[in-house]
């Protein structure tokens, strides 16, 4: 479904990502793990169109989408829940969700809004509240629900558990589990490598801007050279 080939992205003279190769099959849940500054966010940003890659290509369902704008990619079915959630704090919860569904027809948007209310009761309860007043866990749910409003075929999430209390981290991973059981295709950046490998079919390990390993949870855990990824990075 998604094929990333030799992707390189630079900030000025610094290559934040070098020659990254990655693929995600339809219905797969793929993790991207590695320490801070490894290039995980850069990789997602380059796929989603927020950053322009200097070299390499991104193919989605057979079409070359390298360097396309985020608004075009969203219409093709690629959605990103950005790092730090980036909720529109001055808009209400419902308005945030509506923005997520801006590409849908009026009727479809209403239906999706109803679905999100069923799936995330707290969002329905607080739908008229300015989203800036939500707790960390609530705003993470809003960020994910907002992305789901576009009916994405590939949903990418950047650090969905970051900054959440342990009990809320559980909620996020349960949600990933649920999305997985619905057959959704997910590409998730997580510092919490141990938890991620439990829910992912496969994962890629990034370090200093390069993909250094790929495999199932069992494969990766068996590699002594990656020990620090699980313990050093952010074991929680």
């Amino acid at each position, binding site marked *: 479904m998604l094929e990333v080939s030799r992707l390189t992205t630079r900030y000025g003279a610094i290559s934040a990502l070098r020659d990254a190769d990655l693929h995600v099959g339809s219905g797969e849940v793929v993790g991207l793990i590695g320490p801070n500054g490894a290039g995980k966010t850069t990789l997602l940003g380059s796929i989603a169109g927020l950053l322009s890659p200097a070299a390499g290509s991104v193919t989605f369902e057979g079409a070359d989408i390298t360097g396309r704008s*985020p608004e075009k990619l969203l219409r093709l079915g690629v959605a990103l829940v950005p790092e730090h959630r980036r909720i529109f704090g001055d808009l209400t919860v419902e308005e945030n969700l509506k923005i997520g569904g801006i590409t849908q027809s009026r009727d479809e948007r209403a239906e999706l809004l109803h679905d999100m209310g069923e799936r995330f009761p707290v969002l329905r309860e607080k739908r008229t509240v300015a989203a800036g007043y939500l707790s960390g866990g609530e705003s993470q749910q809003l960020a994910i629900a907002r992305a789901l409003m576009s009916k994405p075929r590939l949903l990418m999430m950047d650090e969905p558990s970051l900054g959440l209390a342990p009990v809320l981290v559980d909620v996020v991973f349960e949600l990933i589990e649920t999305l997985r059981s619905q057959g959704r295709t997910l590409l998730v950046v997580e510092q919490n490598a141990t938890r991620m490998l439990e829910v992912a079919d496969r994962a890629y390990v990034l370090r200093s801007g390069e993909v250094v390993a790929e495999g199932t949870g069992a494969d990766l855990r068996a590699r002594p050279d990656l020990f620090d990824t699980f313990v050093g990075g952010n074991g929680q």
Partner: protein
Amino acid sequence: MTELLQNLIDGLGRGSIYALLALGVAVIFGVMHLLNFAHGELITVSGYVAFWTINEGWSWYLVTPVIIGTAIVTSLVIERVAFSRVRGSSDFTLLLTSFGVHFVVSAIFLLYVSASVKTFSEPGWVADTFPVGSLNVEVYDAVVIGVTLVTLLGTSWLVQRTMFGLALRAAAADFDTARLMGVRSDTVIRGAFALSGLLAGIAGVFWLMRSGHTTPTVGITPMLKGVLAALIGGLGSLRGAVLGGFVLGLAEVLLRSRLPDSVASLTEGFVFLMIALLFIFRPQGLIRVAHAERV
């Protein structure tokens, strides 16, 4: 008491026009962080359209929609020709570009039309008044205040209740994230320029109706009033811009009528002094905007 009420009505009339201009400045600043010093060019172009059409014998009823349409189209053309090329550049580049647009438009009229003042006749009712109790209300002020009220309500509906308005607010808060949600940057930015043009067009009709003349630099004063009012209100805040417009209009009228005759001609100076004081004590303007800087 009567005099104060009279001042209030005059100030509201003047403030209405400033509010429309400031709102146009604030809408653009909100979505692309451009402090648009070319906003007055919409009035300049409208002024020549008024000059050409009215001297052809067109009535103001016909000229009004033509002016508004001209302002909208001019706003979109300026976006296409100038601002779309510097989208995403630093705020300073955008600011300089807007000065550039101002000079180029003035120069076009200076070179290809004339440097001299071009006059056209105002509508007959502009100077008419009608009595309300002990007050004498100008028909002009009543029309300006009424139309502005309707325009502000319409704008508020557009911004608060439509998907376009939602996209505009989301883009103003966080442009990148709005694009990730599928908000088209072209749609939002062009929409903002069209809205800004519409508001400037309405303000322009009122401005020109009263002044009855145009020059290549006729847009400077309305532009300054609009930018100042937007600054007073707190840049980027739409409510603030409207509030700033009315505050500026009322301040001008009250100062002019209250100052002793010998210094009344210095009203502008006193207004600027008050604005300077406001920024010393409240640099963020009357209404604070959380996202005043782009992240």
